[in-house]
């Protein structure tokens, strides 16, 4: 039992080591970790660029008003090294984005995860490099 726990801990430490925790810039100055948000909407644009890839999507508010949100992902270079491409997400797809709100209050979010309608995640592990 103890061995199993040790192996699990070692595995966890290994995974932590393998994921670089540095980003192009310090994310915390732009996005507020104390303001998590979950948004669901339809993808209108994919920007496969540096220093960040971005997706834009239309999200309907409780009153039915639709707003276009700007979603910051990791760098294109980092996503490419994880196996993602510009074709991993298509315009018109429905996605759920979990992330942190921009400090200024604009409709901007730094994504922690992007999930497709069928539950598959795209651009996972983002923002870690």
């Amino acid at each position, binding site marked *: 039992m103890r061995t199993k726990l040790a192996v699990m801990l070692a595995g966890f430490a290994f995974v932590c080591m393998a994921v*670089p925790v540095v980003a192009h810039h310090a994310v915390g*100055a732009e996005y507020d970790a104390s303001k998590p948000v979950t948004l669901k909407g339809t993808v209108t644009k994919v920007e496969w*660029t540096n*220093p960040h890839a971005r997706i834009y999507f239309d999200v309907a508010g409780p009153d039915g008003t639709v707003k276009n949100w700007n979603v910051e992902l990791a760098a294109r270079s980092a996503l490419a090294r994880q196996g993602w491409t510009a074709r991993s997400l298509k315009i018109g797809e429905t996605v759920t984005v979990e992330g942190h709100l921009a400090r200024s209050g604009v409709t901007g979010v730094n994504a922690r995860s992007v999930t497709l309608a069928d539950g598959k995640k795209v651009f996972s592990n983002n923002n870690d*490099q």
Partner: protein
Amino acid sequence: MGRPDTRETGPVPMRRSRVRKLLVVSAMTAALLSLLVQSASTQGGPETGKVAAARRAGPPKGPVPRLPDGTVNLMDGVWTGGGPVNDLESQGGLKKGELDALLLPWAKALMATRDETQEPHNACLPMGVPRVTPFPYRFVQNYTHKAPTHMFILHEGNIHTFRQIFMDGRKHPAELDPTWLGHSIGSWETKDTLVIDTVGYNDKFWFDRRGHPHTEQLHTIERWTRLNLGQMENKFTLDDPGAYSKPITMTFMATLQPPEDELLEYICQENNQYGAATIPGYKGPSLGNQPVK
């Protein structure tokens, strides 16, 4: 009769050694050319998507690879690490306060005005020396048939940057107009350590996100020693009498990336939206030794 010209008919052993040298240099040039052709494509390849997974195996293992002239081969892959990002002091292996204690009063006061939103790096400006980014870099050595002439360090990330290091024995010019990456001369110390000596820096880049400053008097010495196939130490000496009371040396470790990795295109200016919409009252980067107004 004049003295016979022995250039064409020199002693056989010397000719053989010349031929051997020429063959070695030709082989090295061919290898370099193929490497440059590979690097000229910034698309990576079908293997690029496997890099993150391959990294989990840790740095590649094996002995230090060497070139035919006995010096360390630094050109067999791309590297990450080897310099600071967040904090020069702690990432360089110094004790807390060890570097900061050397800051001259004006430099300490300037650093106190800086916060990470103002760093030039956020505006797609160069990261300076010895700073690194999360993205890889590659050493490329240029040869003539006699000897290395230049070492280039090609940085993928933020921003596409090359450092040019003169390996031909020249000295620093007496007067230099300051630049972001300075004037670098390099040499091999006992064939194990690449020593890069640089002056002529401007005062614009920040050493790290904490905003450690410097002046145009900055002089840096990097000692790159490959410890094994996968790891290389960068012993870095910071010598800036304009901002620090004495020189100080710190140590960083670089890691060879898996063979699947190549330099990719990274055009930071294409879609940099840093701060403009997201940070209330964002003022842009702070360059040089004047605090942001």
